[in-house]
């Protein structure tokens, strides 16, 4: 929140805005059906691609929006920092996360949404997250070397390949639209599931 319109909104508003955004995020997540684990795992079985669509749309909306705001000088992109790109640890972590996603039927955000509407499996999943965090933290010294390996630093894809971030965003938008179209075709062929 920090870099956004510092002349209008001072830093003291950060927490309030964060709470409002969090409420809005949770509301949208729930109203788009993301508290249902059947809908969430549909992307793995091919009968519902809402997850892919929503997250891909969010990604291109955010990147186009941020680049426009950067262009108008409303937001200081240099002040936004991402996680350092540790290639192999991220790949391994992504696989573990994906396995948890398909078996548990939630991702960390949506399980909280499920708790919000009182789903028991949401509570169980959340307990699992806390347990996993605890186990990971306790065993951290074991993986520490791997965790910090193949670190490329704080780079973006367009920085790493040295291409214009604007044309990169155009490319991502086109890929997103193609993905939407392809998933639509897949869904038509897969037997629809009632849930």
């Amino acid at each position, binding site marked *: 929140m920090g870099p956004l319109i510092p002349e209008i909104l001072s830093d003291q508003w950060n927490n309030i805005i964060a709470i409002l955004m969090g409420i809005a995020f949770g509301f949208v997540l729930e109203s788009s059906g993301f508290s249902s684990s059947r809908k969430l795992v549909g992307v793995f079985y091919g009968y519902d691609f809402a997850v892919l669509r929503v997250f891909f749309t969010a990604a291109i*909306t955010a990147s186009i929006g941020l*680049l426009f705001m950067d262009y108008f000088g409303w937001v200081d992109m240099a002040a936004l920092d991402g996680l350092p790109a540790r290639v192999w640890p991220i790949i391994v972590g992504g696989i573990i996360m994906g396995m948890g996603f398909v078996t548990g039927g939630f991702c960390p955000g949506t399980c909280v949404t499920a708790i919000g509407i009182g789903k028991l499996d949401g509570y169980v999943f959340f307990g699992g997250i806390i347990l996993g965090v605890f186990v990971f933290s306790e065993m951290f010294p074991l993986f520490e070397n791997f965790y910090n390996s193949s670190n490329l630093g704080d780079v973006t894809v367009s*920085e790493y390949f040295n291409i214009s971030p*604007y044309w990169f965003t*155009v490319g991502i938008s086109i890929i997103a639209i193609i993905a939407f179209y392809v998933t639509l075709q897949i869904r038509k062929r897969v037997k629809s599931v009632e849930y």
Partner: protein
Amino acid sequence: MKKRYIFLALVPIVLSVLLAVLPDKSNSIDAKRNQKDLKSAIYTGVTPNNLLLESVNSDRFMQPDELAKVILGQDPSYLLLDLRDSVQYGKFTLPGAINIPYQKILTEENQAIFDSEAYKVVLFSNGTIVSDQVWMVLRRAGIKNLKVLNGGLNQFYQLYLNPPKPAETDPQEAFENYSFRKAVGAHLGLPNPDEFIPGGAAAVQGSTISTGTKPTVKAAVKAAPAKVVVPKKAESGDEGC
């Protein structure tokens, strides 16, 4: 339904292409990234806008009374940094202050001082001009946790050697401040201003106290003549604030 999908699909593509062909991106992240030399400045330093905002914010100052409490309490979260030359430093400085003449502030061996986040560095010199300039230079170099002593040593000195006497109608707080300042002055064993500030007697207006302290002030500072009296008075000053 189908038409709506096509329209929505076109929106991000049109917007992103528009973004790519927009002219004059001199202010954008891409332009900044292409100026390779500036890259480190962008990520470690402070942007001109923020520097301007910070420089007009009074937060960057440390008021003399705050500093007095730090000195009395020997607060380890502040490091006092004297920016004057070593001759002036040798004659008088604040208790616990270290000396880096402002000309040498950016040399490599001095950078370790600014590396730690455990304490704040309070910059001071005779006035505020030099310490303000040093603040600006260090801030541009990306160093945080800096404070400037408001008014510099001159004002600090004046405030504690000859604190402004409150009028009888002033609130209790003003009297407590007054006695606190007197106690601090006594604790610091402030010497005659003639000894260390060029034209000091004129700078410290209406100075009534003239101690016979010699230029070797450090001993006097440590001796702290009124030390027994101080804690009580300082406490009463604390209550008022």
